[in-house]
């Protein structure tokens, strides 16, 4: 097992910097797209953030995923707040799902080191497609 890399602040693993203005503009474009996606579908938006960080800002997958998740905390909070204004948020149900999910993340991170990720990814893809069919047909 490789130890966790602990680069000093501002070290070389930072993605490329195309000038601050260009960078902010790109981040703003990604943020706007991700926000639209998140608000429209009720998801975090990682599906659009991760590929765009890699494509437009030269991120590696690991850092793109981690940075995306951090941004999602803010994006989902904004979108949930706006959804609340429309009266669509069921706070009790959100807690019922969101609190066990915290335990799930910790468990999942532990499991990830002990289970074949590929098999899980393929299985989960199957679950997604089946759920999509069920959702449309019901």
């Amino acid at each position, binding site marked *: 097992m490789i130890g966790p890399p602990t680069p000093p602040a501002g070290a070389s693993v930072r993605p490329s910097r195309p000038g601050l203005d260009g960078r902010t503009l790109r981040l703003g474009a990604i943020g706007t797209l991700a926000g639209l996606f998140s608000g429209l579908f009720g998801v975090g938006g990682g599906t659009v953030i991760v590929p765009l960080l890699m494509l437009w800002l030269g991120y590696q997958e690991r850092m793109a995923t981690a940075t995306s998740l951090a941004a999602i905390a803010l994006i989902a909070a904004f979108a949930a707040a706006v959804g609340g204004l429309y009266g669509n948020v069921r706070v009790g149900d959100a807690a019922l799902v969101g609190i066990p*999910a915290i335990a799930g993340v910790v468990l999942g991170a532990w499991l990830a080191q002990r289970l074949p990720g590929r098999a899980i990814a393929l299985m989960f893809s199957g679950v997604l497609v089946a759920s999509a069919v069920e959702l449309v047909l019901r």
Partner: protein
Amino acid sequence: MIGAILLGLAGGVVAGVLGVGGGVLFVPGLVFFIGLDQHHAEATSLLAIVPVAIVGTLRNDRYGNVCRQDALVLGLLSVAGAAAGVALANLLSGRVLRDAFAALMVLVAGQLVRRVLSERRDSPDTGAGSSAQIARSRGE
């Protein structure tokens, strides 16, 4: 109620193992198990995602994988898009929204399969492993 708790647990596990956010599982789960309509399920899913993203980020940050400044800029600049997205969702009928969501699920499934297949091509199990494998082994 048990269904919702198991759903949360499952969503968290998937997020922890695959790095795919819980939302894509929470929305259909809230529809199937709690009986919410598409609009309520989506808005409720958003709130449920927040704690998952925070805990995941605290873990990732320990490994120095989070580019904090970019995440902050990205998150803060998403506010207009997020408001527009929610407004758009509320303009659409539940049926249209549901069908679009189903298409999104298939898209995410395809992304996952493609990722798995490209890993297989890149790294015949020699010790080092690709960055994606390392990322996954850390549960991001």
